[in-house]
């Protein structure tokens, strides 16, 4: 197995990389571990004291549930695996309060007891209040997993086979026309010849527009043991943290499986 990092942006929230010499089973295992098993914080219970805004209590609670909260994995444990046996304690839940009387209510108006767990996007509007309208609520956030509800999923993650473009130069009459037809700008003309722009090759989605333009000269293929992975964090965790946690979770599950096998005779 070989891993090549393609990009990571400054915020470290997005990442892409190629994994070589694996098969779809392993690629999909990694993807599903990331979506379903990496725990994040999200609001689960909302107790509403006052709400005479236009939005109903349920709608507000739903909006709050979808807010990504920055997550500190070291100081919390998943509620169902906590010593409190699912009752909810300081190790698995966190109370946040929201109180507002005027204008637009933003996610940044939340008061959290833990400065490490706050809404990841402070500018998210929650509800707009007119004069005389008021909102007051206590929300309980808990650490949960994407397999229970998608609001706990940490990121968008997807993969594809690595694209291969084979160009036979001889039959291409008009290279510029082929360049123009590619929606992703993967091809370019260098000294009169049609070439692949290696920096953009990974953008190729095998749409085959170029192969339609030059039927006998361009062949598209995918490499079936090299995967291009993309991770786009929703804001709770950084991309690297997500992958590392997913692999830890996979290790944990495998050790549970191993223990089960050992008890078998």
């Amino acid at each position: 197995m070989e891993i090549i990092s393609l990009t990571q942006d400054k915020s470290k929230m997005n990442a892409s990389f190629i994994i070589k010499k694996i098969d779809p089973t392993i690629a999909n295992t990694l993807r599903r571990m990331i979506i379903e098993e990496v725990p994040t914080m999200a609001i689960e219970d909302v107790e509403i004291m006052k709400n005479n805004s236009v939005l109903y209590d349920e709608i507000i609670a739903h909006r709050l549930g979808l807010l990504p909260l920055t997550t500190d994995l070291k100081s919390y444990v998943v509620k169902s695996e906590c010593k409190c046996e699912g009752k909810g304690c300081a190790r698995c839940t966190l109370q946040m309060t929201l109180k507002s009387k005027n204008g637009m209510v933003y996610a940044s108006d939340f008061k959290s007891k833990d400065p490490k767990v706050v809404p990841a996007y402070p500018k998210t509007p929650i509800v707009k209040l007119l004069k005389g309208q008021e909102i007051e609520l206590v929300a309980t956030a808990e650490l949960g997993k994407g397999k229970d509800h998608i609001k706990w999923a940490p990121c968008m993650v997807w993969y594809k086979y690595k694209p291969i473009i084979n160009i036979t130069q001889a039959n291409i009459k008009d290279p510029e026309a082929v360049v123009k037809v590619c929606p992703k700008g993967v091809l370019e003309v260098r000294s009169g010849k049609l070439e692949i722009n290696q920096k953009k090759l990974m953008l190729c989605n095998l749409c085959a527009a170029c192969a339609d333009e030059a039927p006998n000269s361009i062949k598209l293929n995918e490499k079936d043991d090299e995967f291009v992975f993309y991770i786009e964090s929703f804001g709770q965790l950084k991309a690297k943290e997500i992958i590392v946690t997913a692999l830890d979770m996979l290790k944990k599950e495998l050790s549970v499986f191993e223990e089960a096998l050992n008890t078998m005779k």
Partner: protein
Amino acid sequence: MMIPVRCFSCGKPIAQHWEEYKERAENGESRKEILDSLGITRFCCRAMFLGHVDLIDTAAKFKKF
């Protein structure tokens, strides 16, 4: 009514960009350019902005039952 917190299709949080989008669109900037500069690349998320009508100011005047 209000811009949804996340994209319906892919789940990416988008609501935090709404006020900037609205202000820039009112100043006459092209919607394509705004969305590109906000980093909203997928068509599902882009549609959330293009199709949204902010009705909260109108609806807020009426009584809730």
